[in-house]
């Protein structure tokens, strides 16, 4: 039987995405990170916001979306980077890298699975806000919202993939992953508006994709104008990150073959 095919990338990516979602859902730690942490973030944010005297529905929504996105970012870091560390430990990383299928498709599928699950965090945060804090649900541009979400998912996925490539290379990339968690919350304006940050941080904010992801979503939910700009930036950065990730992979996989970094040994 010669069933080998390299012409079904979409099927492959879809299959890996689905498998990865199932695998992630068997991990207690992942479930905790993805399903519980956003609720804790949201609760803290709502309480802080209240004690500051705020009540306006739109501002509440602004806060809720930000803390939801914080959860998505944590999930992305854990699911993309951590999953590679896990596979190395489990002994499956070598099998995946050495399979006849293109590894960048496999990685893309894994990343997509993670990020899609992560976006559940936003939904959960909104529901939490409605139920516990009486947050009104309204959207300035309801028709734009799905596009904003999609752009954010795609762009975070591309970034997740780029992060994952460093985990393929370094056995101890965990430290890097942890280091990236909180700064991005700040830089991307998830915790406080970017306008509240020092001026020199802005260029950094523009380079990281969660900034535009949250801009796009907030824009559709509570913005004054449709968020075409942020959506375009999400897609543009996604392409840049994806190309960078592929470039990195070529380097990383060559180095892994030379330095034997795919196993624990």
């Amino acid at each position, binding site marked *: *039987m010669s*069933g*080998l*095919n*390299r012409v079904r990338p979409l*099927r*492959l990516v879809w*299959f*890996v995405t689905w*498998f990865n979602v*199932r*695998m992630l859902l*068997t991990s207690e730690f992942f479930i905790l990170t993805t399903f519980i942490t956003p609720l804790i973030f949201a609760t803290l944010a709502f309480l802080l916001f209240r004690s500051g005297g705020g009540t306006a529905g739109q501002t509440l929504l602004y806060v809720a979306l930000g803390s939801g996105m914080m959860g998505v970012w944590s999930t992305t870091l854990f699911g993309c980077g951590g999953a590679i560390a896990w596979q190395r430990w*489990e*002994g*499956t990383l*070598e*099998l*995946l*890298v*050495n*399979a*006849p*299928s*293109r*590894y*960048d498709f*496999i990685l893309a599928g894994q990343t997509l699975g993670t990020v899609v699950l992560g976006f559940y965090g936003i939904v959960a945060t909104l529901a939490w806000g409605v139920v516990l804090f009486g947050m009104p649900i309204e959207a300035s541009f309801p028709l734009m919202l799905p596009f904003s979400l999609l752009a954010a998912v795609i762009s975070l996925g591309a970034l997740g993939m780029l992060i994952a490539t460093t985990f393929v290379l370094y056995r101890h990339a965990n430290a890097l992953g942890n280091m990236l968690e909180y700064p991005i919350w700040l830089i991307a304006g998830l915790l406080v508006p970017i306008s509240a940050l020092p001026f020199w941080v802005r260029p950094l904010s523009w380079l990281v994709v969660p900034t535009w992801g949250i801009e796009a979503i907030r824009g559709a939910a509570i913005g004054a104008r449709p968020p075409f700009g942020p959506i375009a930036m999400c897609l543009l950065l996604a392409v840049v990150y994806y190309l960078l990730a*592929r470039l990195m*992979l*070529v380097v990383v*996989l*060559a180095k892994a*073959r*030379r*330095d*034997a970094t*795919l196993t624990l040994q």
Partner: protein
Amino acid sequence: MSASAHRPAVPAADPVFAIEADDLVRSYETHTGVLRRHRLHVGAVKGITFGIRSGELFGLLGPNGAGKTTTIKMLITLLLPTSGTARVMGYDVVRETQAVRERIGYVFGGDRGLYDRVSALDNLRYFAELYGVDPAFQQRRIAELLELVGLNGREREKVEGYSRGMRQRLHIARGLLHDPQVLFLDEPSIGLDPVGARELRQTVRSLVESGKTVLLTTHYMFEADALCDRIAVINAGRIVAEGTGADLKATVANRTIVEIETFGATPDAIERLRADPEVIAVNSDQREQSEIFLVQSETGAQITSRLLAALGDTRIGKVIAREPTLEDAYVDLIATTGEPDERSARAASVQ
């Protein structure tokens, strides 16, 4: 992505050897120390050459650390050789990775490399996809393989509940999904109970009967002898003997083995035995209470009294003189070809 760019210009037509290695060398670089970093070169494989014909079951036999896994990893494109070349089905393992990967299956010993929290069926479906098995054939192929490795009926159970032997058989099924022509089995029977190991050997045999080329590594002489058409003994990164089990046995055929059980033997006892001019080799087997010396000579059983005399007042237990076995041939080879650890000698301080 890089791999598919290296499609061979001319597909190798019917190569004589399914697997050929030509002076393969591989060393690892490791670091020790925290403040003063020392870079160590570990020579794992030091120039090995062999050819395996299509349909052959070839055994790479050697003790732990001999370089078996490293050799396999170079052949399956996971590791780059430091120098030397190798081909699988005529394709170069360094440059034509895609073509090689499509044609090989491999199984590492031990129980890692599976997704424990889902079923065997899920594992196989996942890898079938990654190995590019045509979706139209996947179901039939998976059913065939479950049958072949004897896991049919258990495929819906989670892998975490599987025994060692079942996991190993699942690994083999995984390695065969895309119907590869060449199969690499790295210590497949490690950690299996005797029944599991026997069943596994049965499976391997049936694979060879169905026309596959198999390279199997093991550190059990009897396993290599029972299974393999040809055996290469590898020690400290070099092939030190090659041939059929009978060929290897012939190297010690005219020897006699005297087994002497001793209690509380002093460290110099073995040296005193070796001092006898007619003794060819002495190996020691440390037991819980006793130490057994295995003395090889061509003198026959009559050397026994001299050996006992050499041991002086050491307490002696059972003494047996017997014909050599394959195991003796192997032990002798390993004992006489090993070399001192090279790591410290080659350590380079790089700070």
